[in-house]
Protein backbone atom coordinates (compact mmCIF):
# COMPACT_ATOMS: atom_id res chain seq x y z
CA UNK A 1 0.00 0.00 0.00
CA UNK A 2 2.72 2.45 0.98
CA UNK A 3 4.73 1.43 -2.05
CA UNK A 4 2.28 2.73 -4.64
CA UNK A 5 2.03 6.03 -2.91
CA UNK A 6 4.07 9.13 -3.48
CA UNK A 7 6.45 9.86 -0.59
CA UNK A 8 5.57 12.23 2.20
CA UNK A 9 8.39 14.65 1.41
CA UNK A 10 7.55 14.72 -2.27
CA UNK A 11 3.85 15.26 -1.64
CA UNK A 12 4.67 18.08 0.80
CA UNK A 13 6.81 19.85 -1.79
CA UNK A 14 4.21 19.27 -4.49
CA UNK A 15 1.36 20.66 -2.42
CA UNK A 16 3.21 23.72 -1.20
CA UNK A 17 4.74 24.56 -4.59
CA UNK A 18 1.86 26.68 -6.00
CA UNK A 19 1.80 28.76 -2.82
CA UNK A 20 5.57 29.15 -2.75
CA UNK A 21 5.77 30.14 -6.42
CA UNK A 22 3.19 32.84 -5.83
CA UNK A 23 5.02 34.09 -2.73
CA UNK A 24 8.29 34.20 -4.65
CA UNK A 25 6.67 36.11 -7.52
CA UNK A 26 4.75 38.58 -5.35
CA UNK A 27 6.94 39.01 -2.28
CA UNK A 28 10.51 37.75 -2.64
CA UNK A 29 11.27 39.03 -6.15
CA UNK A 30 9.63 42.45 -5.59
CA UNK A 31 11.60 43.05 -2.38
CA UNK A 32 14.84 42.25 -4.20
CA UNK A 33 13.72 44.33 -7.15
CA UNK A 34 12.81 47.24 -4.86
CA UNK A 35 16.32 47.13 -3.44
CA UNK A 36 17.72 47.25 -7.00
CA UNK A 37 15.37 50.07 -8.07
CA UNK A 38 16.34 52.08 -5.00
CA UNK A 39 19.90 52.33 -6.34
CA UNK A 40 18.78 53.60 -9.76
CA UNK A 41 18.12 57.18 -10.83
CA UNK A 42 14.70 56.94 -12.45
CA UNK A 43 12.69 59.91 -13.68
CA UNK A 44 9.40 58.98 -15.30
CA UNK A 45 10.22 56.24 -17.79
CA UNK A 46 13.90 57.21 -18.08
CA UNK A 47 16.44 55.23 -16.10
CA UNK A 48 19.69 57.16 -15.76
CA UNK A 49 21.49 54.23 -14.20
CA UNK A 50 23.16 53.26 -10.95
CA UNK A 51 23.55 55.96 -8.32
CA UNK A 52 24.39 53.91 -5.26
CA UNK A 53 22.79 55.27 -2.11
CA UNK A 54 22.03 58.66 -3.68
CA UNK A 55 18.24 58.12 -3.43
CA UNK A 56 18.50 57.38 0.27
CA UNK A 57 20.71 60.44 0.78
CA UNK A 58 18.23 62.66 -1.04
CA UNK A 59 15.12 61.59 0.85
CA UNK A 60 16.99 62.22 4.10
CA UNK A 61 18.61 65.51 3.04
CA UNK A 62 15.32 66.97 1.84
CA UNK A 63 13.87 66.06 5.24
CA UNK A 64 11.00 64.20 3.60
CA UNK A 65 11.82 60.85 5.17
CA UNK A 66 11.98 62.39 8.63
CA UNK A 67 8.66 64.18 8.15
CA UNK A 68 7.07 60.94 6.94
CA UNK A 69 8.43 59.11 9.97
CA UNK A 70 7.04 61.78 12.29
CA UNK A 71 3.64 61.64 10.57
CA UNK A 72 3.68 57.83 10.85
CA UNK A 73 4.58 58.09 14.52
CA UNK A 74 1.82 60.61 15.30
CA UNK A 75 -0.84 58.82 13.28
CA UNK A 76 0.31 55.36 14.33
CA UNK A 77 0.69 56.29 17.97
CA UNK A 78 -2.74 57.89 18.00
CA UNK A 79 -4.33 54.91 16.28
CA UNK A 80 -2.73 52.26 18.47
CA UNK A 81 -3.31 54.01 21.81
CA UNK A 82 -6.84 55.17 21.03
CA UNK A 83 -7.98 51.85 19.59
CA UNK A 84 -6.45 49.68 22.33
CA UNK A 85 -8.05 51.71 25.11
CA UNK A 86 -11.40 52.08 23.36
CA UNK A 87 -11.47 48.39 22.45
CA UNK A 88 -10.68 47.35 26.02
CA UNK A 89 -13.56 49.46 27.32
CA UNK A 90 -15.98 48.11 24.69
CA UNK A 91 -14.81 44.52 25.19
CA UNK A 92 -15.31 44.80 28.95
CA UNK A 93 -18.77 46.28 28.35
CA UNK A 94 -19.69 43.45 25.97
CA UNK A 95 -18.37 40.83 28.36
CA UNK A 96 -21.15 41.74 30.79
CA UNK A 97 -24.52 40.07 30.30
CA UNK A 98 -27.25 42.46 29.18
CA UNK A 99 -30.29 42.42 26.94
CA UNK A 100 -29.39 42.65 23.27
CA UNK A 101 -25.75 41.74 23.81
CA UNK A 102 -25.66 39.37 20.87
CA UNK A 103 -27.08 42.01 18.56
CA UNK A 104 -24.44 44.53 19.62
CA UNK A 105 -21.75 41.90 19.09
CA UNK A 106 -22.90 41.32 15.52
CA UNK A 107 -22.93 45.06 14.87
CA UNK A 108 -19.31 45.37 16.02
CA UNK A 109 -18.12 43.35 13.04
CA UNK A 110 -19.76 45.57 10.41
CA UNK A 111 -17.29 48.49 10.30
CA UNK A 112 -14.43 46.01 10.03
CA UNK A 113 -16.09 44.18 7.14
CA UNK A 114 -16.71 47.11 4.83
CA UNK A 115 -13.94 48.31 2.49
CA UNK A 116 -11.56 50.87 4.02
CA UNK A 117 -11.77 52.99 0.88
CA UNK A 118 -15.56 53.20 1.22
CA UNK A 119 -15.17 54.15 4.87
CA UNK A 120 -12.95 56.95 3.60
CA UNK A 121 -15.45 58.05 0.95
CA UNK A 122 -18.31 58.03 3.47
CA UNK A 123 -16.45 60.04 6.09
CA UNK A 124 -14.99 62.41 3.57
CA UNK A 125 -18.58 63.37 2.75
CA UNK A 126 -19.67 63.48 6.42
CA UNK A 127 -16.68 65.64 7.39
CA UNK A 128 -17.29 68.22 4.68
CA UNK A 129 -16.84 71.72 6.10
CA UNK A 130 -20.12 73.11 4.79
CA UNK A 131 -22.75 70.41 4.32
CA UNK A 132 -21.38 67.35 6.08
CA UNK A 133 -23.40 65.39 8.61
CA UNK A 134 -20.64 65.43 11.20
CA UNK A 135 -20.50 69.21 11.45
CA UNK A 136 -24.30 69.39 11.18
CA UNK A 137 -24.59 67.13 14.23
CA UNK A 138 -22.14 69.31 16.13
CA UNK A 139 -24.21 72.38 15.12
CA UNK A 140 -27.42 70.73 16.29
CA UNK A 141 -25.77 69.94 19.62
CA UNK A 142 -24.62 73.54 19.86
CA UNK A 143 -20.94 72.56 19.77
CA UNK A 144 -20.08 74.26 16.50
CA UNK A 145 -20.91 77.58 14.97
CA UNK A 146 -20.32 78.26 11.28
CA UNK A 147 -18.00 76.20 9.11
CA UNK A 148 -15.19 73.98 10.22
CA UNK A 149 -12.73 72.35 7.84
CA UNK A 150 -11.03 69.67 9.87
CA UNK A 151 -8.45 69.04 7.20
CA UNK A 152 -6.96 72.54 7.08
CA UNK A 153 -5.29 72.28 10.47
CA UNK A 154 -2.49 69.79 11.12
CA UNK A 155 -3.72 68.72 14.53
CA UNK A 156 -7.37 68.26 13.61
CA UNK A 157 -6.44 66.55 10.34
CA UNK A 158 -4.44 63.89 12.21
CA UNK A 159 -7.21 63.64 14.80
CA UNK A 160 -9.87 63.02 12.15
CA UNK A 161 -7.80 60.42 10.30
CA UNK A 162 -7.20 58.64 13.60
CA UNK A 163 -10.92 58.76 14.44
CA UNK A 164 -12.06 57.47 11.05
CA UNK A 165 -9.43 54.72 11.16
CA UNK A 166 -10.68 53.85 14.64
CA UNK A 167 -14.28 53.73 13.45
CA UNK A 168 -13.26 50.89 11.20
CA UNK A 169 -10.46 49.09 13.00
CA UNK A 170 -11.34 49.25 16.71
CA UNK A 171 -13.71 46.35 16.11
CA UNK A 172 -10.91 43.89 15.40
CA UNK A 173 -9.38 44.63 18.82
CA UNK A 174 -12.77 44.32 20.47
CA UNK A 175 -13.18 40.84 18.99
CA UNK A 176 -9.68 39.77 19.98
CA UNK A 177 -9.99 41.18 23.51
CA UNK A 178 -13.45 39.70 23.93
CA UNK A 179 -12.13 36.26 22.97
CA UNK A 180 -9.31 36.79 25.47
CA UNK A 181 -11.69 37.84 28.24
CA UNK A 182 -13.90 34.84 27.67
CA UNK A 183 -10.91 32.53 27.92
CA UNK A 184 -10.29 33.64 31.52
CA UNK A 185 -11.82 30.96 33.77
CA UNK A 186 -14.66 32.35 35.91
CA UNK A 187 -13.25 30.52 38.94
CA UNK A 188 -10.45 33.13 39.02
CA UNK A 189 -13.01 35.85 39.51
CA UNK A 190 -14.91 33.87 42.08
CA UNK A 191 -11.72 33.43 44.07
CA UNK A 192 -11.01 37.16 43.82
CA UNK A 193 -14.54 37.93 44.97
CA UNK A 194 -14.10 35.69 47.99
CA UNK A 195 -10.94 37.61 48.82
CA UNK A 196 -13.01 40.79 48.69
CA UNK A 197 -11.31 42.33 45.66
CA UNK A 198 -13.09 45.38 44.26
CA UNK A 199 -14.04 45.62 40.60
CA UNK A 200 -11.13 47.96 39.87
CA UNK A 201 -8.71 45.69 41.73
CA UNK A 202 -9.98 42.70 39.80
CA UNK A 203 -9.37 44.50 36.51
CA UNK A 204 -5.83 45.65 37.32
CA UNK A 205 -4.62 42.62 39.28
CA UNK A 206 -6.45 39.83 37.49
CA UNK A 207 -7.86 40.71 34.07
CA UNK A 208 -5.03 42.87 32.80
CA UNK A 209 -2.14 40.52 33.72
CA UNK A 210 -4.03 37.53 32.29
CA UNK A 211 -4.76 39.48 29.12
CA UNK A 212 -1.14 40.56 28.70
CA UNK A 213 -0.18 38.05 25.97
CA UNK A 214 -3.34 38.85 24.00
CA UNK A 215 -2.78 42.59 24.32
CA UNK A 216 0.87 42.24 23.37
CA UNK A 217 0.18 40.30 20.19
CA UNK A 218 -2.63 42.66 19.20
CA UNK A 219 -0.35 45.62 19.85
CA UNK A 220 2.41 44.27 17.64
CA UNK A 221 0.03 43.24 14.84
CA UNK A 222 -1.52 46.70 14.90
CA UNK A 223 1.91 48.36 14.87
CA UNK A 224 2.83 46.41 11.75
CA UNK A 225 -0.41 47.25 9.99
CA UNK A 226 -0.24 50.93 10.95
CA UNK A 227 2.75 51.18 8.59
CA UNK A 228 0.43 49.99 5.81
CA UNK A 229 -2.19 52.72 6.27
CA UNK A 230 -2.84 54.24 2.88
CA UNK A 231 -6.48 54.14 1.76
CA UNK A 232 -7.89 56.56 4.32
CA UNK A 233 -4.98 59.00 4.00
CA UNK A 234 -5.27 59.00 0.21
CA UNK A 235 -9.01 59.65 0.27
CA UNK A 236 -9.35 61.96 3.28
CA UNK A 237 -6.26 64.18 3.28
CA UNK A 238 -3.92 63.34 0.42
CA UNK A 239 -1.12 63.59 2.95
CA UNK A 240 -2.03 67.15 3.92
CA UNK A 241 -2.29 69.74 5.17
CA UNK A 242 1.34 70.24 4.20
CA UNK A 243 2.97 66.99 5.22
CA UNK A 244 0.96 66.48 8.42
CA UNK A 245 -0.57 63.15 7.42
CA UNK A 246 2.01 62.10 4.82
CA UNK A 247 2.76 58.77 6.47
CA UNK A 248 5.39 56.36 5.12
CA UNK A 249 3.00 54.44 2.87
CA UNK A 250 1.58 57.63 1.39
CA UNK A 251 5.04 59.14 0.95
CA UNK A 252 6.16 56.02 -0.93
CA UNK A 253 3.14 56.37 -3.19
CA UNK A 254 3.87 60.05 -3.79
CA UNK A 255 7.50 59.58 -4.78
CA UNK A 256 6.72 56.67 -7.08
CA UNK A 257 3.36 57.48 -8.60
CA UNK A 258 2.87 61.25 -8.26
CA UNK A 259 6.42 62.47 -8.88
CA UNK A 260 7.26 59.32 -10.90
CA UNK A 261 10.61 59.00 -9.14
CA UNK A 262 10.52 55.22 -8.95
CA UNK A 263 14.08 55.03 -7.61
CA UNK A 264 13.37 57.23 -4.63
CA UNK A 265 9.98 55.60 -4.14
CA UNK A 266 11.69 52.23 -4.03
CA UNK A 267 14.14 53.58 -1.45
CA UNK A 268 11.25 54.63 0.81
CA UNK A 269 9.51 51.31 0.12
CA UNK A 270 12.64 49.45 1.14
CA UNK A 271 12.97 51.44 4.38
CA UNK A 272 9.31 50.66 5.09
CA UNK A 273 10.11 46.99 4.48
CA UNK A 274 12.97 47.12 6.98
CA UNK A 275 10.71 48.77 9.56
CA UNK A 276 8.07 46.09 9.10
CA UNK A 277 10.80 43.46 9.24
CA UNK A 278 12.15 44.66 12.58
CA UNK A 279 8.71 44.64 14.20
CA UNK A 280 8.01 41.24 12.64
CA UNK A 281 11.18 39.72 14.08
CA UNK A 282 10.23 41.05 17.51
CA UNK A 283 6.76 39.58 16.99
CA UNK A 284 8.04 36.13 16.07
CA UNK A 285 10.53 36.20 18.98
CA UNK A 286 7.80 37.12 21.46
CA UNK A 287 5.40 34.54 20.07
CA UNK A 288 8.10 31.92 20.28
CA UNK A 289 8.92 32.73 23.88
CA UNK A 290 5.29 32.81 25.00
CA UNK A 291 4.67 29.27 23.85
Amino acid at each position, binding site marked *: MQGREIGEGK*LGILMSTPAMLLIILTAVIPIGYALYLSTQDIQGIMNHGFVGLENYREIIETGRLQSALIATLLFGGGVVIFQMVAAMIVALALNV*KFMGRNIVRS*LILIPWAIPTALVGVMWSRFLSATDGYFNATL*RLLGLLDGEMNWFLNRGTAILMVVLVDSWKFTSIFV*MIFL*AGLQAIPTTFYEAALVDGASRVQRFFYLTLPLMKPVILV*ALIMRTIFVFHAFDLIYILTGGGPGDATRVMAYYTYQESFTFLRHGRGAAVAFILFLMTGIVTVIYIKLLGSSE
Partner: protein
Amino acid sequence: MNELSGWLKVLHRLVVAFVVIAILLPFYWIFVMSVTPQRYIAGQAIPAMIPVDVSFDAFARVLGLVEVEAAQAERAAMMFRRSMFNSVVVAGASTILALIFGLLAAYALARLDFPGKNASYVMILGSRLLAQITLAVPMFTIFEIMGILDTYLPLIIMNTSFCMAWVTLIMDNYFDMIDSEMEDAARVDGCTRFGAFWRVLLPMARPGIISVMLISFLFAWGEFLYALLFTSSMAARTMPVVLSMFLGQFAIEYRLLAAGLVMGVLPPVIIALLFQRFIVQGLTQGGLKG
Protein backbone atom coordinates in the same frame (compact mmCIF):
# COMPACT_ATOMS: atom_id res chain seq x y z
CA MET B 1 -20.51 36.76 37.83
CA ASN B 2 -20.60 40.20 36.37
CA GLU B 3 -23.74 41.84 37.65
CA LEU B 4 -23.47 45.59 37.57
CA SER B 5 -25.21 47.95 39.92
CA GLY B 6 -25.77 51.64 40.50
CA TRP B 7 -23.76 54.18 38.54
CA LEU B 8 -21.68 51.46 36.96
CA LYS B 9 -24.78 50.08 35.29
CA VAL B 10 -25.63 53.54 33.95
CA LEU B 11 -22.09 53.98 32.66
CA HIS B 12 -22.22 50.56 31.04
CA ARG B 13 -25.47 51.32 29.21
CA LEU B 14 -24.01 54.64 28.04
CA VAL B 15 -20.95 52.92 26.59
CA VAL B 16 -23.12 50.34 24.82
CA ALA B 17 -25.48 53.04 23.50
CA PHE B 18 -22.54 55.08 22.23
CA VAL B 19 -21.08 52.07 20.42
CA VAL B 20 -24.39 51.23 18.75
CA ILE B 21 -24.97 54.83 17.65
CA ALA B 22 -21.40 55.29 16.45
CA ILE B 23 -21.69 52.20 14.26
CA LEU B 24 -25.18 52.74 12.89
CA LEU B 25 -25.39 56.52 12.47
CA PRO B 26 -23.05 56.72 9.43
CA PHE B 27 -25.10 54.04 7.67
CA TYR B 28 -28.27 55.96 8.45
CA TRP B 29 -26.74 59.14 7.00
CA ILE B 30 -25.72 57.33 3.84
CA PHE B 31 -29.24 55.95 3.50
CA VAL B 32 -30.79 59.40 3.95
CA MET B 33 -28.39 60.83 1.36
CA SER B 34 -29.25 58.11 -1.12
CA VAL B 35 -33.01 58.75 -1.10
CA THR B 36 -33.19 62.52 -0.56
CA PRO B 37 -32.96 65.00 -3.44
CA GLN B 38 -29.75 67.00 -3.73
CA ARG B 39 -31.29 70.36 -2.76
CA TYR B 40 -32.04 69.21 0.80
CA ILE B 41 -28.44 68.28 1.43
CA ALA B 42 -25.92 70.08 -0.79
CA GLY B 43 -24.84 73.41 0.68
CA GLN B 44 -27.11 73.04 3.74
CA ALA B 45 -25.60 73.82 7.12
CA ILE B 46 -28.06 71.28 8.52
CA PRO B 47 -28.63 68.69 5.76
CA ALA B 48 -31.81 66.61 5.89
CA MET B 49 -31.59 64.44 9.00
CA ILE B 50 -34.62 62.38 8.04
CA PRO B 51 -35.47 61.35 4.46
CA VAL B 52 -37.39 64.05 2.58
CA ASP B 53 -39.20 63.62 -0.77
CA VAL B 54 -38.09 59.99 -0.73
CA SER B 55 -37.31 58.43 -4.08
CA PHE B 56 -35.21 55.45 -4.99
CA ASP B 57 -34.36 57.13 -8.25
CA ALA B 58 -30.63 57.16 -7.55
CA PHE B 59 -30.58 53.36 -7.19
CA ALA B 60 -32.53 52.93 -10.42
CA ARG B 61 -30.06 55.21 -12.20
CA VAL B 62 -26.97 53.55 -10.80
CA LEU B 63 -28.37 50.17 -11.78
CA GLY B 64 -29.23 51.47 -15.25
CA LEU B 65 -32.96 50.86 -14.88
CA VAL B 66 -33.86 54.39 -15.93
CA GLU B 67 -32.36 56.77 -18.46
CA VAL B 68 -30.34 59.66 -17.04
CA GLU B 69 -30.61 63.08 -18.68
CA ALA B 70 -27.19 64.47 -17.75
CA ALA B 71 -24.44 62.86 -19.83
CA GLN B 72 -21.88 63.00 -17.03
CA ALA B 73 -24.19 61.35 -14.52
CA GLU B 74 -25.04 58.68 -17.08
CA ARG B 75 -21.35 58.01 -17.63
CA ALA B 76 -20.80 57.83 -13.89
CA ALA B 77 -23.62 55.32 -13.47
CA MET B 78 -22.16 53.23 -16.29
CA MET B 79 -18.69 53.36 -14.74
CA PHE B 80 -20.12 52.24 -11.43
CA ARG B 81 -21.95 49.25 -12.94
CA ARG B 82 -18.85 48.14 -14.76
CA SER B 83 -16.74 48.55 -11.61
CA MET B 84 -19.15 46.37 -9.60
CA PHE B 85 -18.79 43.68 -12.25
CA ASN B 86 -14.99 44.02 -12.13
CA SER B 87 -15.03 43.77 -8.34
CA VAL B 88 -17.08 40.58 -8.47
CA VAL B 89 -14.68 39.04 -11.00
CA VAL B 90 -11.53 40.03 -9.10
CA ALA B 91 -12.83 39.13 -5.64
CA GLY B 92 -14.38 35.87 -6.86
CA ALA B 93 -11.33 34.67 -8.76
CA SER B 94 -8.92 35.69 -5.99
CA THR B 95 -10.97 33.93 -3.33
CA ILE B 96 -11.16 30.66 -5.27
CA LEU B 97 -7.45 30.66 -6.16
CA ALA B 98 -6.41 31.63 -2.63
CA LEU B 99 -8.49 28.77 -1.25
CA ILE B 100 -6.98 26.19 -3.60
CA PHE B 101 -3.35 27.26 -3.13
CA GLY B 102 -3.76 27.97 0.57
CA LEU B 103 -5.51 24.73 1.53
CA LEU B 104 -2.91 22.64 -0.27
CA ALA B 105 -0.07 24.50 1.45
CA ALA B 106 -1.81 24.40 4.84
CA TYR B 107 -2.17 20.63 4.62
CA ALA B 108 1.49 20.23 3.71
CA LEU B 109 2.52 22.44 6.64
CA ALA B 110 0.18 20.81 9.14
CA ARG B 111 0.48 17.13 8.26
CA LEU B 112 3.55 16.47 6.15
CA ASP B 113 7.24 16.61 6.77
CA PHE B 114 9.15 17.93 3.78
CA PRO B 115 12.43 19.71 3.08
CA GLY B 116 12.14 23.50 3.33
CA LYS B 117 9.03 23.36 5.49
CA ASN B 118 10.19 25.91 8.04
CA ALA B 119 11.42 28.29 5.37
CA SER B 120 8.06 28.01 3.60
CA TYR B 121 6.22 28.84 6.79
CA VAL B 122 8.36 31.88 7.54
CA MET B 123 8.03 33.17 3.97
CA ILE B 124 4.26 32.87 4.01
CA LEU B 125 4.00 34.52 7.43
CA GLY B 126 6.43 37.24 6.37
CA SER B 127 4.61 37.95 3.10
CA ARG B 128 1.38 38.64 4.96
CA LEU B 129 3.06 41.33 7.00
CA LEU B 130 4.54 43.30 4.08
CA ALA B 131 2.97 46.65 3.33
CA GLN B 132 1.01 46.69 0.10
CA ILE B 133 2.79 49.84 -1.03
CA THR B 134 6.20 48.19 -0.53
CA LEU B 135 5.19 45.57 -3.07
CA ALA B 136 3.26 47.94 -5.32
CA VAL B 137 6.32 49.97 -6.32
CA PRO B 138 8.37 47.07 -7.75
CA MET B 139 5.30 45.09 -8.89
CA PHE B 140 4.13 48.05 -10.97
CA THR B 141 7.34 47.86 -12.99
CA ILE B 142 7.16 44.06 -13.19
CA PHE B 143 3.55 44.10 -14.40
CA GLU B 144 4.45 46.83 -16.86
CA ILE B 145 7.21 44.67 -18.33
CA MET B 146 4.80 41.71 -18.45
CA GLY B 147 2.34 43.98 -20.26
CA ILE B 148 -0.63 43.11 -18.06
CA LEU B 149 -1.33 46.49 -16.44
CA ASP B 150 -4.99 47.56 -16.66
CA THR B 151 -6.27 43.99 -16.81
CA TYR B 152 -7.74 41.79 -14.08
CA LEU B 153 -4.52 39.79 -13.83
CA PRO B 154 -2.36 42.00 -11.58
CA LEU B 155 -5.26 42.48 -9.18
CA ILE B 156 -6.06 38.78 -9.07
CA ILE B 157 -2.39 37.86 -8.62
CA MET B 158 -1.81 40.29 -5.74
CA ASN B 159 -5.11 39.57 -3.99
CA THR B 160 -4.62 35.84 -4.34
CA SER B 161 -1.16 36.09 -2.86
CA PHE B 162 -2.30 38.07 0.17
CA CYS B 163 -5.45 36.03 0.84
CA MET B 164 -3.57 32.78 0.29
CA ALA B 165 -1.20 33.67 3.13
CA TRP B 166 -4.23 34.20 5.37
CA VAL B 167 -5.79 30.93 4.28
CA THR B 168 -2.56 29.00 4.80
CA LEU B 169 -1.83 30.37 8.26
CA ILE B 170 -5.36 30.06 9.61
CA MET B 171 -5.96 26.61 8.11
CA ASP B 172 -2.57 25.29 9.20
CA ASN B 173 -3.67 26.16 12.71
CA TYR B 174 -7.12 24.70 12.12
CA PHE B 175 -5.80 21.41 10.76
CA ASP B 176 -3.50 21.17 13.78
CA MET B 177 -6.56 21.24 16.02
CA ILE B 178 -8.20 18.34 14.17
CA ASP B 179 -7.02 14.95 15.30
CA SER B 180 -5.49 12.93 12.45
CA GLU B 181 -7.18 9.72 13.70
CA MET B 182 -9.84 9.71 10.96
CA GLU B 183 -7.29 10.26 8.21
CA ASP B 184 -5.12 7.46 9.60
CA ALA B 185 -8.12 5.14 9.60
CA ALA B 186 -8.88 6.07 5.99
CA ARG B 187 -5.29 5.36 5.02
CA VAL B 188 -5.40 1.95 6.66
CA ASP B 189 -8.46 1.33 4.45
CA GLY B 190 -6.30 2.03 1.40
CA CYS B 191 -6.82 5.73 0.91
CA THR B 192 -3.83 7.75 -0.33
CA ARG B 193 -2.49 10.68 1.67
CA PHE B 194 -4.02 13.12 -0.77
CA GLY B 195 -7.28 11.16 -0.71
CA ALA B 196 -7.35 11.38 3.07
CA PHE B 197 -6.83 15.14 2.83
CA TRP B 198 -9.47 15.59 0.13
CA ARG B 199 -12.20 13.24 1.30
CA VAL B 200 -11.69 13.10 5.05
CA LEU B 201 -9.96 16.20 6.36
CA LEU B 202 -11.52 18.88 4.15
CA PRO B 203 -15.14 17.98 4.98
CA MET B 204 -14.26 18.01 8.68
CA ALA B 205 -12.63 21.43 8.32
CA ARG B 206 -15.65 23.02 6.66
CA PRO B 207 -16.29 25.73 9.31
CA GLY B 208 -12.68 26.87 9.04
CA ILE B 209 -12.83 26.86 5.25
CA ILE B 210 -16.00 28.97 5.23
CA SER B 211 -14.32 31.41 7.58
CA VAL B 212 -11.16 31.89 5.47
CA MET B 213 -13.24 32.02 2.28
CA LEU B 214 -15.32 34.91 3.66
CA ILE B 215 -12.30 36.76 5.02
CA SER B 216 -10.56 36.40 1.65
CA PHE B 217 -13.61 37.65 -0.21
CA LEU B 218 -14.00 40.64 2.10
CA PHE B 219 -10.36 41.58 1.64
CA ALA B 220 -10.42 41.28 -2.15
CA TRP B 221 -13.76 43.11 -2.35
CA GLY B 222 -12.33 46.08 -0.48
CA GLU B 223 -8.77 46.08 -1.84
CA PHE B 224 -7.94 49.62 -2.97
CA LEU B 225 -4.25 50.35 -3.48
CA TYR B 226 -3.46 47.76 -6.16
CA ALA B 227 -6.71 48.51 -7.95
CA LEU B 228 -5.82 52.20 -7.93
CA LEU B 229 -2.28 51.75 -9.22
CA PHE B 230 -2.54 48.82 -11.61
CA THR B 231 -5.60 49.96 -13.56
CA SER B 232 -6.04 53.03 -15.72
CA SER B 233 -9.40 52.53 -17.42
CA MET B 234 -12.79 50.98 -16.91
CA ALA B 235 -11.43 47.68 -18.20
CA ALA B 236 -10.44 46.54 -14.71
CA ARG B 237 -11.11 49.39 -12.26
CA THR B 238 -12.90 48.06 -9.20
CA MET B 239 -15.78 49.57 -7.22
CA PRO B 240 -13.75 51.18 -4.38
CA VAL B 241 -11.56 53.04 -6.87
CA VAL B 242 -14.52 54.28 -8.92
CA LEU B 243 -16.40 55.49 -5.83
CA SER B 244 -13.29 57.31 -4.61
CA MET B 245 -13.10 59.00 -8.03
CA PHE B 246 -16.70 60.18 -7.65
CA LEU B 247 -15.78 62.16 -4.52
CA GLY B 248 -15.60 65.85 -5.18
CA GLN B 249 -16.90 65.58 -8.73
CA PHE B 250 -19.40 68.37 -9.04
CA ALA B 251 -21.49 66.67 -11.71
CA ILE B 252 -22.15 63.65 -9.51
CA GLU B 253 -25.04 64.14 -7.13
CA TYR B 254 -24.66 63.05 -3.53
CA ARG B 255 -27.61 60.74 -4.11
CA LEU B 256 -25.72 58.84 -6.78
CA LEU B 257 -22.58 58.60 -4.65
CA ALA B 258 -24.61 57.44 -1.65
CA ALA B 259 -26.51 54.86 -3.70
CA GLY B 260 -23.16 53.53 -4.92
CA LEU B 261 -21.91 53.39 -1.33
CA VAL B 262 -25.01 51.50 -0.22
CA MET B 263 -24.46 48.89 -2.91
CA GLY B 264 -20.74 48.69 -2.20
CA VAL B 265 -21.20 48.07 1.52
CA LEU B 266 -24.22 45.80 1.23
CA PRO B 267 -22.37 42.54 0.42
CA PRO B 268 -19.87 42.92 3.31
CA VAL B 269 -22.61 43.96 5.74
CA ILE B 270 -24.74 40.95 4.82
CA ILE B 271 -21.74 38.62 5.10
CA ALA B 272 -20.76 40.11 8.47
CA LEU B 273 -24.25 39.73 9.88
CA LEU B 274 -24.96 36.24 8.54
CA PHE B 275 -21.59 34.64 9.15
CA GLN B 276 -20.46 36.57 12.20
CA ARG B 277 -19.50 33.48 14.15
CA PHE B 278 -17.30 32.03 11.40
CA ILE B 279 -15.45 35.26 10.77
CA VAL B 280 -14.80 36.05 14.41
CA GLN B 281 -13.48 32.54 14.94
CA GLY B 282 -11.14 32.80 11.97
CA LEU B 283 -9.90 36.23 13.02
CA THR B 284 -9.36 35.56 16.68
CA GLN B 285 -7.98 32.02 16.52
CA GLY B 286 -5.90 31.83 13.38
CA GLY B 287 -5.21 35.51 13.01
CA LEU B 288 -4.00 35.97 16.51
CA LYS B 289 -1.78 33.00 17.07
CA GLY B 290 -0.44 33.40 13.51
